[in-house]
């Protein structure tokens, strides 16, 4: 009984290690940051080491209130992209203006602004890449997807 348990644990461990080592060929990061009238600057670090050849960064942000600035920096602090979105109505419902689909406001008469940036960096600099999120009384969410592909996956 004891031998059987040890055998099962060993097999499971081997399977886990194998699965993990396969995942090492591509490194995914998926973070969602919720903002609730937030004004605090946030920095997300994405470590790049020398086994990866492509860094794919996708940042998706939607706000119903406030301002938001998104910037991408390499390990040397050089900017590799940015966008900013802003709402003007302070999160209030719209009573005038258009509210139909295709109008400037969503179906709930709320002002919503959306921004997305996609950057594919080939042979990225080794080190910590930084996604800097600078909200100003922002309410909404930011989704950060990062994918790093090895030599083998990049050539497929």
């Amino acid at each position: 009984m004891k031998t059987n348990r040890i055998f099962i644990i060993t097999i499971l461990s081997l399977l886990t290690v194998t699965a993990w080592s396969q995942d090492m060929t591509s490194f995914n990061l998926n973070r969602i940051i919720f903002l609730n009238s937030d004004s605090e600057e946030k920095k997300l670090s994405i470590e790049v080491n020398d086994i990866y050849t492509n860094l794919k960064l996708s940042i998706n942000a939607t706000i119903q209130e406030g301002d938001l600035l998104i910037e991408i920096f390499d390990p040397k602090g050089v900017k590799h992209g940015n966008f900013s979105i802003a709402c003007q109505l302070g999160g209030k419902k719209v009573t005038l203006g258009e509210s139909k689909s295709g109008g400037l406001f969503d179906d709930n008469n709320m002002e919503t602004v959306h921004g997305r940036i996609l950057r594919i960096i080939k042979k990225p600099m080794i080190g910590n890449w930084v996604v800097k999120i600078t909200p100003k009384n922002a309410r909404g969410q930011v989704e950060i997807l990062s994918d790093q592909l090895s030599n083998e996956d990049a050539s497929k």
Partner: protein
Amino acid sequence: MLQSNIMKLPAQLSRGYLVSLILFYSFSIQVKSQAVISGQVNIDTGVWSPVVYLSLIGDFEDLNKMTNTMIIDKVALSSSGRFKFNISYLPEEDVLLRIHFSKKGDPPASLIIGGKDENHFFLIANRNSIITIQDTSNSEFIKGMQVNGYAPNNVLQKINEIAGYIDTTEFNGSPVKAELIHNAVYEKLRSIADTCTNPTASLYALYRSRYEDNFTPNQQYYQNYLLKWKNNDSKYLKSFRKKIGESATSKKSTRYLSNIAFLIAGFLFCLLVVKAGRKKANPIYDLSQQERKVFALILEGKSNKEISSVLSISLSTVKSHINSIYSKLGISSRKEMLNNNIDNKFNISDNTQ
């Protein structure tokens, strides 16, 4: 009869003249109101909303900014993908505009940068522009938009092609090589900015060249650039002048502050060095406060007992201090202390208090 006809001639001529005048002005108004941006796009209406949005870029800093208030107009696409904006309300001078489409599910104010879903492009227009947009894309929706009818937009497209080279090119070399290629692209864009005759297109090239990363080592280039456009009062150039001025001023201030800080640090360092030097040359600094007092009294010729009385300490304490003084000053007797021109050697005059 002939005479009556001749009499009618001035009236007929006047009427004719009036009609011509009316026709001429009507034609003029019509020509003015024909300032349009029109085009036809092939979009997948299953993915994209069939609406085209037109935004005014008030400042080049807002190239990558999206707000609802930037959107100045929107039109629905026809079933054949056609659209038309009347832009006769634009000012006489060129403005930078942005056309964008929103994906279904995204709000109207939606900006997507990079990738196959990039949803916007820029163009330059004024109240007299007649612009047509042709969608020549096969696979990449926005990248295939051709803007025709107003020459500065040809420059814009060239700038976009060059700037886009960085994203599309395959680098087989090292990151150092990639950086060299990036620098070459930005240099090309700055060259376009330098030689372009349209100020808005020129400034667009400069912004796409990431001028902020290049400003400090090339301030002369930017000063010359502003000189070139010194007679141009466009709001874009005014804003850029202010930014360059602020960058130069803030960098100047930083430089002055750092210089002052270095001067102060250097001065303090010299003081420390001199003091340390003096300290080294003058072993009197090694003596404690009490030892210096004992030392000074010895130089006055006082005996141990007198020193004990003056300083109100015991005789044994005086002797202990004297031994310590001998050791620190590298001497072995009172005589040596007095004979070796002590005052000059040890410079005690300021150190006995």
